[in-house]
């Protein structure tokens, strides 16, 4: 099959990058026109991604790699390149689609912001970096884009930098993800030193880690895998580096959708999936990944039960779902993880954009002040409901299929992980039900004026919702018990059936999954959905537990005590050191020079005779020194 589009895949990140350059060059004066430019660029990228994906769907599509020499230092050559595989094609579609929808949505959502063109420039750069990350054919290029993604998330989370919370959140996101980035960097360096020919591209990785060649020892492999995973933990908000993700809600809502669905957090999962060869060579690392994923999943889901900010609930849900993906990866089912990433991208983007629509209407994020909005915003309510059901794993929505794939993989790995995952599914359904019922049903608990004025959002915001809702319903059918080509396709054309991940469908899994989600929804309806149910019903029954959950298991406080405070004390000590010792030394130097200068001005009085005297003294000393040597 002809692979014409894959050859120009490098255009995909180039479109938004150009948009970014144009918007940055033109400055704020562009205003609305800039937004259109950025949206058009993302549309172009999306079309290209679709074409590539269509091309890849052909049976014998070869992986296409293009690379250029980037740096040559002595004998070391670093390449920058791109590689199109089925996995990247899928990611391209996800990223460009969500980016496009977010762009369209933001046209309306951000239209009153005076820095709208800056916003779109950031979004364009964000998209471009993510696409570059996806397309990169080696770890170094990936790392560059990886950091760019981090920078963009920093810029966008702190977009409303006049809000102190936004500033703090942006800083937190940046600093926390840096911890993970450092791990990735070390992993890349280790690979660089230990790989034959210093190769960092995925093909070489595949060859080295699949041939059981003794290039790298087992412990080194495990170390590298864990370090890569540390990077993924930082970016994908896994425990214990999850703390930045909920705070990232301070950014504009479309950005939350972008971060949570397509770009930032997907990068971590994608990284692990892309370097899965390394993980497969190290069972211990895989177990760690699975354990961290499972723990994160249930941990975040539990926190999500008690949050009152609509976006925070969704944020913890994202953390939890990312835990699922990691769990699937750790269970050796990369395909299941990517599938879940794929479906999750749609319904999480849908949920965030719908939440943004709600926030846009009532100007609050506190679900305790909402209620009854379903009657006012029918479209939003319906689409949000679809997203919530999909997230809860209700058949036949996409979330059901992908979650089942994950659960099946978990069961294969260990029954305990499976049990945790099922409980998480229950929690997921429960908090989504709580969220939906509190926001859209019942009567309004907020100010009446706000409620009366709440109305459906404009078309630019609802159209993406509808598109995403349709996709949410439909996306799951790419991998169903009767349609199992996806794992094989994802694993690549060259791979055989034995690599096709955990494909077996298990009646137990389906039953458990459906039961958990339905039970969760029922519980949610019982507690929050029935007429007259109190918002704080759960809090009244188990205050201690709810408090712990509301405080997010005191993780932030723990970090505060364990890291932030000591560092602050250290910082203050260093500050004092700086003021007294360093500045003191600097001042000493300055003062002494000043003093010398003053002395000099007094010497250089302009009096000729003084100068003459000095010259005479100099001459005498010189003569004595030169001629007098003979006598000593």
């Amino acid at each position, binding site marked *: 099959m002809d692979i014409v589009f894959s050859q120009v895949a490098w255009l995909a990140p180039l479109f938004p990058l150009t948009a970014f350059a144009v918007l940055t060059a033109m400055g704020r004066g562009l205003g609305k026109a800039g937004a259109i430019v950025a949206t058009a660029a993302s549309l172009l990228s999306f079309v290209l991604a679709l074409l590539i994906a269509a091309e890849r769907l052909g049976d014998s599509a070869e992986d296409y790699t293009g690379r250029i020499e980037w740096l040559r230092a002595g004998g070391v050559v670093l390449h920058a390149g791109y590689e199109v595989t089925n996995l990247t094609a899928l990611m391209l579609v996800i990223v460009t689609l969500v980016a496009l929808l977010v762009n369209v949505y933001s046209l309306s959502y951000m239209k009153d912001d005076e820095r709208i063109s800056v916003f779109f420039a950031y979004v364009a750069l964000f998209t471009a970096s993510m696409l570059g990350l996806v397309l990169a054919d080696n770890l170094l290029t990936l790392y560059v884009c990886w950091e760019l993604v981090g920078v963009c998330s920093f810029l966008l989370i702190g977009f409303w930098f006049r809000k102190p919370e936004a500033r703090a959140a942006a800083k937190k996101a940046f600093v926390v993800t840096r911890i993970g980035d450092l791990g990735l960097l070390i992993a890349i360096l280790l690979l660089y030193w230990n790989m034959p020919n210093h190769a960092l591209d995925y093909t070489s990785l595949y060859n080295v880690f699949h041939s059981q060649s003794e290039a790298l020892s087992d412990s080194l492999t495990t170390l590298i895998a864990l370090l890569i995973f540390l990077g993924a933990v930082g970016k994908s908000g896994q425990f214990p580096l999850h703390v930045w993700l909920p705070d990232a809600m301070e950014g504009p809502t479309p950005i939350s959708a972008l971060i949570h669905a397509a770009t930032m957090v997907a990068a971590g999962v994608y990284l692990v999936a892309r370097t899965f060869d390394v993980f497969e060579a190290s069972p211990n690392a895989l177990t760690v990944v699975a354990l961290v994923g499972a723990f994160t999943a249930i941990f975040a889901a539990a926190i999500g039960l008690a949050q009152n900010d609509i976006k925070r609930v969704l944020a913890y849900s994202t953390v939890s779902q990312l835990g699922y993906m990691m769990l699937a990866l750790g269970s050796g089912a990369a395909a299941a993880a990517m599938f879940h990433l794929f479906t999750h991208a749609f319904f999480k983007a849908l949920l965030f954009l719908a939440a943004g629509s709600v926030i846009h209407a009532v100007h609050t994020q506190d679900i305790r002040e909402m209620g009854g909005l379903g009657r006012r915003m029918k479209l939003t309510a319906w689409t949000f409901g679809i997203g919530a059901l999909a997230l809860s794993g209700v058949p036949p929505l996409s979330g059901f299929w992908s979650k089942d794939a994950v659960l099946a993989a978990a069961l294969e790995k260990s029954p305990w992980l499976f049990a945790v995952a099922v409980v998480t599914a229950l929690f997921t359904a429960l908090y989504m039900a709580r969220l939906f019922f509190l926001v859209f049903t019942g009567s309004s608990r907020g100010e009446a004026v706000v409620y009366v004025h709440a109305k459906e959002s404009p078309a630019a915001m609802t159209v993406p919702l509808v598109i995403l809702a349709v996709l949410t319903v439909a996306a799951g059918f790419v991998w169903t018990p009767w349609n199992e080509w996806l794992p094989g396709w994802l694993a690549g054309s060259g791979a055989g059936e034995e690599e096709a991940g955990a494909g077996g469908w298990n009646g137990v899994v389906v039953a458990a999954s459906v039961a958990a989600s339905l039970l969760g929804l029922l519980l949610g309806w019982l507690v929050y959905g029935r007429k007259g149910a109190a918002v704080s019903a759960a809090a009244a029954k188990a205050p201690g537990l709810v408090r712990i959950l509301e405080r997010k298991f005191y993780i932030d406080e723990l970090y505060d005590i364990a890291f932030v405070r000591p560092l602050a004390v250290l910082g203050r000590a260093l500050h004092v050191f700086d003021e007294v010792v360093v500045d003191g030394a600097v001042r000493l130097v300055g003062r002494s020079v000043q003093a010398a200068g003053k002395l000099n001005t007094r010497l250089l009085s302009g009096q000729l005779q003084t100068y003459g*005297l000095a010259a005479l003294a100099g001459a*005498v000393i010189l003569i004595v020194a030169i001629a007098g040597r003979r006598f000593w």
Partner: protein
Amino acid sequence: MFNNVNIEFTGEFFAFFLLAVCAIVGAVLAINFAKVVHMAVSLAFTFVSLAGLYVLLQAEFVAFVQVLLYVGAVTILMIFGIMMTKHQSEGSETGRPLLETLAAIGCLCLFGILFYAIRSASFPVPTGELPADNTMAIGKLLYSSYAIPFELVSVLLTVAFIGAVALAKREPEGGNGEGAEPAAENKPAPLSGEEGKTP
């Protein structure tokens, strides 16, 4: 220091001693006088003594020029300069004891060094005799071996003359007349007179 002195008390030495004392006395007085004109005159006395020493050294032409130039021209020039400037602040000459002490120490050190060098140097016995007709010999020498330096010196004098005139010329009105303007009408006269005498 003078233990190995074996000076024959000839007439030449006596004359030298006398003239040397005159010169030193003149110089010392020049430094110690309070009035500027007295200083100039006592320096002229030193210059005359030096001319006598030149005669003693069989340099009659140099002695003649010394009298003409130093006593006749330079000192007179200085006196003109003194006359053209005001000197009401002469009483306060002793205002800088530190500078004077240091200068005295420095000069004494220098003299000590020089004296030590002169004492420790061994001068060879002179050979040859100076020509009898000093002036003619110098004239011949100047116009033969030293023709080029001689011409250069005349150029130098011309330049100095023009430069002196240009410097001392009255500045155009309105340029800067803040200083007191002493009478300067007769100022070019000594300069040109001086120039005429030199060669």
